[in-house]
């Protein structure tokens, strides 16, 4: 049953290709025939107007000139009109847009899943065959995803934007069947329908890629975090504890023979323990700023270390509803970086942080009264870190410079429900 079904499907798929040449021949023949009738009609009517009849075969030379001139003037627009209308007439499968779109979906799902890394021409070939056009290109973003045929001049190209929910996903480029003409209204209508399907498919594929990239980024970040903790434990805590162990062994050995030296060693051990405690605190702080847990986000920002460098930091509002932990940490680190930048580079004396919590997202404005952003702006490590932290949670960052610098960060709440 499957084999028979595949066979039928193959025949259905192949039939447009088989009919393509015949249809083209038929269209050309019809255009030629009608043009022939047009030329003959003009010529005869002009000669009749000059008096040509059964009894009068004399025709003035200027009648021929007028006839030829009329034909020369009208032949091009008439031919162009004929090409469009006859094409519509001949390529009959265009009427059944449902069939074409169904075939398109099948191509997307089964035959040619659009993969930006491999330029698969199957989809473009299907559209080219359906519309009987010499060139089709599907551009996903800036990447030519599927191309068939030789690209004509830009003037002849029909550009169909692929948009989904108002966002431009890519473009569908199609060359008309005949140079110097364009596609008919019916073709354009069908292309418009095809474009909607393509846009949805491209959007889904792009979203899938973004999810995959996000997963990779998460795994990478987690591994980087583990590596950093391992390094801190191995290079910091490990040697310190080993050193203290040796010192304590020495203390035990010297306790009876050289009590004074023992006391000195114990003092060194105590200093070592202080350093180790500081290392552990730093390590823990790196995982999650303790100020957030101890004081809350607002108070933690108000007590930011940069306030001790002369910068006045105002934070609004006084209280926030409970936020996901990931959002709190991201906002704290973004604000920390922004306040740090304001203190170091802005030259201003005040920085205001305002946080607005909506149902779906959190918006944080950080504005200073400094000299603003340099022009042209070359974003450094700090700004990149801010963008990355926002992007990790699906948020956005916008920088504006208007008598100071304002950094606006919007972080969605629905995708950040980590407790």
């Amino acid at each position: 049953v499957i084999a028979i079904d595949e066979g039928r499907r193959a025949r259905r798929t192949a039939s447009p290709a088989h009919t393509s040449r015949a249809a083209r021949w038929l269209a050309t023949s019809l255009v030629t025939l009608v043009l022939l009738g047009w030329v003959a009609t003009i010529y005869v009517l002009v000669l009749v107007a000059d008096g040509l009849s059964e009894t009068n075969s004399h025709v003035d030379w200027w009648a021929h000139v007028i006839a030829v001139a009329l034909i020369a003037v009208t032949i091009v627009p008439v031919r162009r009109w004929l090409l469009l209308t006859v094409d519509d007439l001949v390529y009959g499968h265009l009427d059944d847009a449902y069939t074409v779109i169904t075939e398109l979906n099948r191509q997307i799902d089964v035959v040619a899943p659009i993969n930006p890394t491999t330029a698969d021409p199957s989809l473009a070939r299907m559209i080219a065959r359906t519309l009987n056009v010499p060139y089709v290109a599907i551009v996903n973003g800036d990447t030519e995803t599927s191309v068939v045929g030789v690209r004509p001049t830009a003037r002849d190209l029909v550009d169909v934007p692929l948009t989904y929910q108002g966002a431009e996903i890519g473009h569908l480029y199609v060359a008309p069947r005949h140079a110097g003409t364009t596609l008919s209204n019916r073709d354009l209508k069908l292309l418009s329908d095809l474009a909607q399907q393509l846009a949805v498919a491209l959007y889904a594929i792009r979203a899938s890629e973004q999810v995959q990239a996000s997963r990779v980024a998460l795994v990478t970040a987690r591994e980087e975090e583990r590596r950093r903790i391992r390094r801190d434990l191995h290079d910091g805590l490990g040697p310190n504890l080993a050193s203290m162990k040796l010192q304590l062994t020495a203390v035990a050995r010297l306790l009876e023979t050289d009590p004074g030296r023992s006391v000195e060693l114990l003092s060194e051990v105590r200093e070592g323990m202080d350093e180790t405690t500081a290392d552990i605190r730093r390590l823990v702080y790196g995982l999650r700023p303790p100020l957030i847990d101890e004081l809350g986000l607002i108070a933690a920002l108000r007590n930011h270390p940069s306030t001790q460098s002369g910068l006045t930091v105002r934070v609004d509002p006084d209280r926030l509803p409970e936020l996901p932990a990931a959002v709190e940490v991201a906002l704290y680190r973004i604000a920390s970086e922004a306040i740090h930048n304001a203190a170091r580079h802005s030259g201003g004396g005040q920085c205001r942080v305002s946080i607005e919590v909506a149902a779906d997202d959190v918006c944080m404005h950080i504005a200073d009264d400094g000299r603003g952003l340099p022009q042209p702006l070359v974003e450094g490590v700090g700004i990149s870190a801010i963008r990355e932290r926002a992007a990790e949670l699906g948020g956005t960052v916008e920088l504006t410079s208007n008598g100071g610098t304002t950094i606006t960060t919007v972080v969605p709440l629905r995708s950040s429900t980590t407790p």
Partner: protein
Amino acid sequence: MSRSPNYTIAAVLAGLLSLANTITALVLLPQGSDKINHSSNQPPYAVILVTVVVGLIGIVAAYGVFRTQRWGVILTLVLMVINVLISLPGIPFGPTVFDKVSSAVGLVVAGGAIYFLLRRDAMAEPRAELSV
């Protein structure tokens, strides 16, 4: 596909022309080839035969147009061009005024049928919002 007014008009024009041509030719046909070929007021016998065939096919094709069949539209288009080419000589060289007028009418009707067959109904096919 649903029938547009253009196809209806084209079908009526092509049908009437084909019917008229067929009847006219069928009336002449019984006179026989010898008599017709030797008469100065009649078109050649071969032309009459062609007219009968074209006329009969034209009636069928016009019905195809009326039923909005693609084959009917294409066939009618071809036949109407042939009608134009057949009618053209009759305008200057028709032996009688009636022949000249009937040829001219045939030319106009066939030309009109071609025009309405190829004319696109702008209301039925709204232009898609595409940039070119």
